[in-house]
């Protein structure tokens, strides 16, 4: 009997060991693809552990970064989350089937700074991806977006005059969302970026690269989109991106020819100062209302008019 019990326990244990990783893998939604500093990931009831490259990320995992640390999470639909310093992120919904249109992604950023780069799910529409902070919900479509949650957001909003006198703000949840691209001048085949921020019963949308939306509390409506100051850009760049450490250059290579275009040859078609407006103004031939906008020389001969029905030379 004891022998049989031993066999059963052993078999069950082996079965669990074999099956556990597979059943665990069902919930795997991504991996840690780059790590800098102290970042922990807590899965379910397990103790938080240091994030390592290639470790899986599961639905509901809490990603927590400390000061001067960051983590890049690569999801299975090619979405990329960069968790900046002092950030707490949870991905609480991830449905992805490349063959279906019912995909969705939802994440919560409770504090700190983050960066999001769209993958395949966000191609469906802004309602497919939402990133929530304590005070607002952001819909994302085809974009790079960055966010800052907490007291620092208030500091910059005050400096920019975005908080009305007497308005109550939430020092822990106040949020700034910044659209980084692809912008109007983008040369990418990626869709032009768009974010929609909802709070206090109002939704504000922007498609302008470099523009931000601020929400001070859950009761406040989002501000209109505003252009972010250079110093705030610097803050995002410093915390979410890398910088050389001063060592020797690593594995130099020359860029492919298609990346070596002169910036002048990538002149922006949509920029009114540089191209479109003057071109259009200068060239009556390219304005499609040519005959009716009176650029057309043929409209310079107005003597025969509909009213002038008696003039013999004008009659049919």
């Amino acid at each position: 009997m004891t022998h049989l019990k031993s066999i059963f326990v052993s078999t069950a244990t082996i079965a669990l060991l074999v099956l556990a990783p597979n059943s665990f893998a069902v919930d795997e939604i991504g991996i840690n693809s780059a790590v800098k500093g102290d970042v922990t990931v807590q899965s379910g009831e397990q103790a938080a552990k240091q994030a390592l490259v290639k470790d899986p990320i599961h639905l509901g995992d809490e990603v927590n970064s400390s000061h001067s640390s960051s983590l890049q999470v690569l999801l299975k639909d090619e979405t990329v989350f960069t968790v900046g310093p002092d950030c707490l992120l949870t991905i609480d919904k991830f449905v992805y089937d490349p063959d279906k249109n019912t995909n969705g992604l939802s994440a919560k950023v409770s504090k700190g700074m983050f960066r999001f780069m769209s993958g395949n799910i966000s191609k469906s529409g802004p309602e497919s991806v939402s990133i929530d902070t304590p005070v607002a919900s952001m819909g994302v479509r085809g974009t790079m977006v960055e966010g800052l949650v907490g007291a620092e957001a208030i500091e910059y909003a005050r400096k920019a005059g975005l908080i009305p006198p007497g308005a109550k703000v939430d020092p822990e949840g106040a949020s700034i969302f910044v659209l980084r691209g692809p912008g109007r001048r983008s040369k990418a085949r990626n869709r032009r970026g768009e974010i929609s921020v909802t709070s206090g019963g109002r939704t504000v949308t922007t498609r302008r690269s470099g523009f931000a939306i601020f929400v001070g509390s859950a009761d406040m409506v989002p501000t209109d989109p505003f252009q972010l100051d250079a110093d705030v850009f610097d803050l995002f760049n410093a915390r979410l991106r890398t910088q050389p450490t001063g060592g020797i250059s690593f594995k130099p290579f020359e860029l492919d020819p298609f990346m070596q275009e002169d910036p002048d040859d990538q002149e922006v078609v949509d920029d009114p100062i540089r191209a479109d407006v003057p071109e259009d103004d200068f060239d009556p031939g390219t304005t499609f209302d040519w005959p009716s906008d009176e650029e057309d020389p043929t409209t310079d001969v107005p003597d025969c008019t509909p009213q002038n029905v008696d003039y013999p030379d004008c009659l049919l």
Partner: protein
Amino acid sequence: MRLKTSVSLFFGTTILTVAAALPISANAQNAMDYTGPPVTFEQIYANPDDQDLNLNYARQQAAAGDYLSAASSLERMLYASPNWDSARLFYALVLYKLDDREAARRELDLLDGRPLSPDQRAQVAAYRNDFKKPKASTSSSGFKGRIAVGARYDDNAGNALADTLFTFANRDDTSFFAQGSLQYTNPIGVNGLKFKAGANGQLRRHETFSTADYDTFGGNVGLLGDLSDDMSWTADVQASQVNISGQKYLTQIGGRVSLRKALSEQTGVWLRGTWHDQDYNNLSFTTVEPTRSGDKITVTAGLIKKFNQDSFIGISAGYEDKKATNAAFAYDGLRLNGRFYNGFDNGVYLNGRATYRMLKYDGTSFNNPGPTRREDDHLYGRLGLGASLDTISTMMGGAGNPSLENLNLELGANYTNRSSNNTLLEYKNFGGEVKLIWDF
């Protein structure tokens, strides 16, 4: 039937022309330029820390125009190897192409003092310089074009070209149109000198009064270049023709010269002069049209103010002088223009333009001879409200479709008013139109 045939012919010709003229799209061309081994996302997912794999993936995706994927790969590489200067330069250019200029500028600044190759250093300098200067560059390189189809209703269709000329009965009418233009610009040598050529044309067919149908065709060839970082010039020769009721009515040949100066990133001014030799022909139902022939000269100065990436206004003022063998058709006068464009955050745009002309004729009117020279005031205005089909689909609750981003549906309202000291010449028209526009 005639309408159908003409529109089909026009579209067929235009599509063939565009297809022939656009050898291969830039992205497709670049995709062929990537020479490394193919890399799948699954490989990256399994080996996110494989630097060579990430580099090839970034190159492959950038070649295909997927700069978002390229950027995330490069970020991974820089996390692991922050001193990988070549990767940082690559990353900066990818960000530039994504229109994240602030981030691109920051990455280029970080390459200051880093050991780069001479080519890479030159590239960093070129891009950094590009950020610094307010420029007046005249056009992008390569092809760009537009094809549009639509329908317009006018409550007094005298607004249409032919009616202002031939006294067709005062009537309302609906017209259908197809329009197309193609512009090509290419550097030809030193000092930013570029060659440009363009062609455009349109067909308009009326529902009830086909005699007023007209076609226009035009082309231009010229040069453009920079005088300095913030000043540029354009010079070209132009030829165009207008057919009415299928008969040649006007041919004109001429040229124009323009100068532009950027006062800042937001403000530009321009000056333009044009000269055209106009040659009018009689149609089967006219007799005096050739007496309209003669030179026409215009001089115009304007200002453009950009408020942000999606919003600008432009104003200009000019003088026009038209000669004709018959003094009743010759005039001169002041011309004022205004236009604006505003793109809203939800992707909808509103644009408008208006022209006001004050004309003094050299002679009296044909239909009202007397001692008083004819004087006219002409006002034309148009408002357009549009959005891409992608945006419209999203607004209606659909999933949207990025491939429809360059296909715009536009609703337009037109207004024309002519007042004159000869009241017989006064004229007014309201019109509305719907237009499907493809920019490429």
